[in-house]
């Protein structure tokens, strides 16, 4: 199982704040998961943005991050706190 969270503008664009996907060996890296979601088409195109940020198990990471069954993944636009 992979837990996926969406925040801020992405959450609004997708109309979903989180979902669970069954684990698949095809999700070797975080970018594989992202491409799987992009393939849904329509609003999911936001995950193709150049400034997309992502986190694995609540730590910022790159798109080449390896995934494992049970991971918590998050996609979000550039952070703007402070």
């Amino acid at each position, binding site marked *: 199982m992979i837990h996926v*969270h969406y*925040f*801020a*503008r992405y959450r*609004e664009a997708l109309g979903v704040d989180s979902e669970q996907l069954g684990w698949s060996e095809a999700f070797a890296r975080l970018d594989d998961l992202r491409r799987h979601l992009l393939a849904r088409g329509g609003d999911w195109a936001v995950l193709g943005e150049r*400034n997309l940020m992502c*986190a694995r198990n*609540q*730590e*910022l990471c790159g798109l080449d991050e390896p995934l494992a069954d049970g991971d918590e993944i*998050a996609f*979000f*636009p*550039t*952070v*703007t*706190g*402070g």
Partner: protein
Amino acid sequence: MGIRVQVEAFDPGAELNALHAANVGVGAVVGFVGYVRDFNEGREVGGMFLEHYPGMTEKALGKIADEAAQRWPLLRLEILHRIGRLEPGEPIVFVGTASAHRQAAFDACAFVMDYLKTRAPFWKKEDTGEGPRWVEGRDSDQAAARRW
């Protein structure tokens, strides 16, 4: 070393004074306060909502604080960030540092703000005269964080 993420308002002056806390080894205290402005990127702002990533927020701020404490000889470091609804003029964030000498306190405080702006999972949604809009990240913030 304290990390607080809260809906409640806070008093920046009380936070600044608490950094000394009767520790007579402290020679220098620096406090940064970020406020909600009434104008941003060409539009009037009537208030904002601060969204965050519960769980990750505290971890991300904790990592930034740890890195600052490794780089500089700090006697105190406090990070306080509000979430939820905020009005113009309200304090959003306080970062405070205390050390024996001023350079460590200045540098660590600026470092924490630069990293917080680029690595802590907060997002601002402003109410403007033309409706709500998500604030977009600034290239200047990315550049500031690369200094360190």
